[in-house]
Every structure is written in C-alpha cells, then in structure tokens.
C-alpha cells in the first residue's frame, strides 16, 4: 500500500470525498461549507464535485441544522455536520445531548442516527475565550455518542472514514492549529482507523505522557526535552475519548509507573480526571507517584498572546509535571 503526503485538512477532505463517492446517502451541511469552501477550507471543492443537493450551505443556525441533520438521519441519510468551530455547537447542545445521543435508546432500537458532527476545537491563537473551548470534555460525558480527536493526518483520514461508516453519532474534534500539519496518509480508500484504540506516539520507559489532539505534539516536544535530561518518556495518543482505550493506558503505566495527563480545556471534571481515576483504580499498586495533570489554567481564555500561552499546556509545563512525577524537580 502506497502513501501520499497530505495536510491534516486535506486528509479530512479526502476521507469525506471518498465516502461521499462510496455512499450516496452521505451528505454535508453547515455554514460556509459550499461556496466559501469551508471557513478553514476543509470542504474545498466538494460543492463543485457533488452539487448543492449534497453540499448544503445553511443559514447561521447551529441548533437548526443540527436538528435538520438528525431528522434526515432518522429517515435514512448519513449527514456530516460541520460547525464553524465546536464553540458554536453550544447552541445546538440540546439536539446532540437529548436527541442524537438518545434516540436509538429511547426508541428501543427502532431509530438510528448515523451522523458525524465535526469542527475545529480548542485553542486557536488569540481568538478569545468564546472561540477557544475544548468542548470534548462536555460531550465525552454522554453515553450514546462517540468522541474522537486525531492528532495526525493519517488518523484524521482513517478515523473520519470510520466515523462516516459508523451507525452511531460520532463527534470529531479537530484543531485549527493542526490543519496545515503534513503527514503520510495511506493511499487506500478502504483504510480505516478503529475507535477505542490508542497509538503509542513515542515509546519510553520512565513516564507515560497521555494526551490527544494538538497537545500530543506538545508531549512529543516535551519528551524530546526530557530525553536531553536523561528521562525516557512514552507518549500515548488516545485518538479516541469515547470509547476509551483503557488497556493501552494501563499497559503503559504498568511499565513506567508514572503518568502525566496533558490536554486542552479545564481539568475540573474533564476527560483527564476520568483517566486519572481509571489509573488509580486499576493500576494503584503500579504507581510510584501521583498522577500529574497539565491542562488549561482554570480561567476563561485571555486574548493577549503572552497570557494565552500561559493558559494553554506548553512544553515547559509538561516537562515540569513529568519531572515532578519523577521527583526530579
């Protein structure tokens, strides 16, 4: 199987394009997805290829087009909904929480909602607090939906395909700051990446850095710095938050005996807290130090660039948290 070098946004686009060719019940809707080619150009060329019946520019009404898409999915289509950013999904939260996530269960399995919601998520350089939420923490709480957050173009490609083929609602958390990242992507329209399987982005034996999406790259930078200090860090890229690959997390922690969880968004009650809980419940006797956390500081995101950099997890904070877990401060 050959590979091609694609940017993250191109990998997402290739996956959607190929799946729309493969299955004519797949269609795309959202603000600016057609004529404007997507606010972040993820959907570039799709209107031209598939026409306005399958690439639908909607009015500015997230709760509206989320509901429209859920209704279309209930009667047999497979919509891909683009929010301009996950921040704006807040006004559509009821449709996702009370409808997409529950309709299969509430209907006794009579109805299904095969639907993909996708958007950039998390920090995006000086866009203020209302554009910088890491919304996966809100959504990963909900049974009935799946939440994925790829960090590489190959995973973006393979997981987007899995998402579109899935019979359940799938929420894809992308990152504006990763859209231009280049990487090798399999040249195979049937390449898929299963959900609930983490990848080991870097093998190491001294400490486990556990992350997803953009901060995986922060962890890799931190691991390089730690290596210079004689510390061999393992980096786990979860890729999927619901379902969660508990086994890979525990296997890594049982090897390294130490863990730091790194993510965007606030730590209070978030996905990181869930992971820390599972580590203490299932690997208590393997731990040599308390589980560390690096996340957004517990404040709304400031606009100022210097302040913003303090709030977002960065390499020095991850290095320091790793050293603390190794009692090497």
């Amino acid at each position: 199987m050959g590979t091609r070098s694609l940017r993250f946004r191109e990998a997402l686009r290739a996956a959607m394009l190929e799946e729309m060719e493969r299955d004519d019940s797949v269609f795309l809707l959202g603000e600016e997805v057609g004529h404007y080619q997507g606010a972040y150009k993820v959907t570039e060329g799709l209107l031209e290829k598939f026409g306005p019946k399958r690439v639908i520019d909607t009015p500015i009404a997230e709760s509206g087009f989320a509901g429209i898409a859920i209704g279309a999915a209930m009667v047999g289509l497979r919509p891909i909904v683009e929010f301009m950013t996950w921040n704006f999904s807040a006004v559509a939260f009821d449709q996702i929480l009370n409808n997409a996530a529950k309709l299969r269960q509430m209907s006794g399995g009579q109805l299904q909602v095969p639907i993909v919601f996708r958007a950039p998520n998390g920090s995006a350089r000086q866009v203020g607090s209302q554009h910088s939420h890491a919304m996966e923490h809100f959504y990963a709480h909900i049974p009935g939906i799946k939440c994925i957050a790829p960090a590489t173009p190959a995973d973006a490609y393979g997981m987007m395909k899995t998402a579109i083929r899935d019979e359940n609602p799938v929420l894809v958390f992308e990152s504006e700051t990763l859209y231009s990242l280049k990487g090798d992507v399999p040249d195979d329209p049937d390449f898929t990446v299963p959900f609930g399987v983490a990848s080991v982005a870097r093998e190491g034996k001294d400490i486990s850095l556990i992350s997803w999406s953009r901060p995986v790259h922060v962890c890799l930078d931190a691991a390089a710095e730690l290596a210079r200090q004689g510390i061999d860090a393992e980096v786990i890229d979860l890729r999927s938050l619901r379902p969660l690959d508990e086994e890979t997390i525990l296997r890594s922690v049982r090897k390294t005996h130490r863990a730091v969880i790194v993510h965007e968004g606030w730590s209070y009650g978030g996905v990181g807290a869930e992971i820390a809980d599972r580590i203490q419940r299932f690997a208590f006797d393997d731990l040599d130090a308390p589980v560390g956390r690096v996340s957004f500081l517990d404040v709304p995101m400031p606009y100022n660039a210097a302040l913003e950099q303090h709030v977002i997890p960065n390499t020095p904070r991850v290095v320091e948290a790793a050293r603390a877990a190794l009692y090497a401060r």
Partner: protein
Amino acid sequence: MTTPPLPLSDTGLFRVLRDDLSVDPALPAPDAGLLLRMHREMLRLRLLETRMVVLQRQGRVGFYGSCTGQEAVAIGAGFALQGGDWVFPALRESAIMLVRGFPLVGYLAQVFGNSLDVLKGRQMPSHMSGKQVHQVSWSSCIGPQVPQAVGAAMAMKQRGDRAVAVGFCGDGATSQPDVHNALLFAGRFRPPCVVVCQNNHWSISVPTSKQTASETIAIKARAYGIPGYRVDGNDVLAVHGALQHAFERARRGEGASFVECVTYRIGAHSTSDDPTRYRSQEEVESWQRKDPLVRLQGHLRGAGLLEERGLAALQEELTAEIEAAILEAEQGPPPARATVFDDVYAELPWHLREQREELLRLPPAAGHGGGH
C-alpha cells in the same frame, strides 16, 4: 397551482362546520364514511384519555398529558396523512399513530413501560412512537422535533420520495428557537413539510397573550416566506381539509406551510398540573360549548348519520376495547434488567458489557424485575 381551493388565510379562521353544525355549502361535501371513521377515532381517544388520567390518579401510571378537547387535530391529521409520511408529534398528537394502525395494546404498553413495550420501558408516557407507522417520539425540551421534521422532509426531497413530514408544536413552543429554525429551513429549502401548531391557549399556566404580541401564530409564516393557515382546531373537518391541502401541496413539490389549529386545553397540562389555580371555570366552560367531539356528533345527528342507540353501542364497544387493552398491556412484567444496556450504541461496547456483568452479579432487587 397558486390559488388554494379552500378559503385559507393566516389571520382568519377556516371552518367547515357552521354554528348550526351544518357543513358550509360553499365547501366540498365530506364523505360520510370518512366522517364516521373520524368520529369513531375521536370518541375512542376521548374515552382513552379520560381513562388514562384516572389510571394516573390510581397510581398505575406515572405521568400523563391528555389531549382532551384537542382530539380533532390528532384525528384530522391522522386521516389526512398517507402511509409513507412521517410524523414528528408534540405532547398531544401521540394518538395519530393509532389512526395509522398502531395496535392499542402496544400503545398502552408504552404508557406502562413494561416488557410488552417496543420502547423497552425507556420513554416516559405521552412520548409514544412507532417506526412501523413512521412516528417518532417528541422531545421533552419543547420544539426540537420540529426542525427534525423539516430535516426528514429535506431527506425525502433529496431521495425523490413522494412522502411528506409533519412536525407538531404548541403555542408555547413558537417562542423557542427550534420552531424559528424549523420555519427558517422550511422556507429556505422548500422541503415537503408541514409544521402544525396547536394553539390551545395555555402553555402550562402562561396564556398565549403573554407568550407573544403577534396578531396570530399563523401570521409568523409570512416572515419565513411560506403560507400560514389559521384553522378552527375544534372542527375536525376543517383540520382534515386544511391539512390535506397542505400535505398535497407539499407532495406536489410546492413547499412547506405552517398551520395554526386554534383549540383549547380542556384538562390540565399534565397530571402534574392544577389549572384551577390560574384560569377561570367560565373560560373552560365557554370552550366546552365548542367541544370538537360534541360538534361532530351534532353534525352527524343532523345529517342522519348517528342516532342515540348507535352512539351508546359504539361507546360501550370502545370502552370494552380500551379496558381489555389496558388489562392486557398492564400484565407485562418489567423489562429484564440486562436490557438497560441495549441500544445505547448500535453495538454493545466493552465497558457496558462489563457494567452488565457487574449488575447481573448482584441479587435482583425485590419488585424491580429480576432475571436476565
């Protein structure tokens, strides 16, 4: 096709039955067979709703929101729909599925939420649904099902189906962004959809006059570029005629419309509500004089289609049918506890399999449905 065959408008009130309960001679004469079928269903629904509220008072049912006084809308709509059409109801239109062939025992099993219930005991009463008759459950948050109906209609248009989707809401829901969204998309994309608002004058304790300053609810359609029709919701012939017109229009590809059915909630909002605290008995009585079932029966008598002995026999027959169905539906044991994990996902994930094994290791709680 531009001129409606019926005198429909967004500020008037379309009626078929005149004050003397005769049919307006300017309108097409209704089919006697249809009148009798609609009467039978309206009477059955009146008896059923009355009985359900009693069952709730007896503690046999947890909650109920009855549609007493509003039967003409559910029944008129049910008879105007075709087999492939989809229904996205609100609180007081569940019974449309009975008109479209869903069995009464299965319907009542959804009220009891036991193992006879196709929804497996997961949905509260008055949220009935049945995929076999293309009816989904409404969403408790007031309004979310209406944009879903428009989305379903957009899907039908995309696939080239001849079906339509109808989404229901109440007067209170017209304040919600979801109803605005539904009308916005219905106008913008012209799918084969009809949005029906049952204006029953009360959103729990808030009268429509305190909900909106709009002259009528139907008139709001103008802003979305779709026709609005204001209809006497206590006149089953008017509801049936107006909706048949709206559905056919949608089926022909002429786009969506918005229908306001003016009616009155004779009973409480739900079994959790006491309306004597916020509205007058005089007001209720003034609407009881416009009772849609009584009006239809008056018309049928005048037309020689109904006589007292026949009505008494029919009432007896329907009461017996309801009692037998309640007894049968109530017999179902609670769903097995292991089923609580089913249908959360299309497939059972490992963590739910683990939770299920953990649950099944515990002794079954007394009176709460043991077994696997």
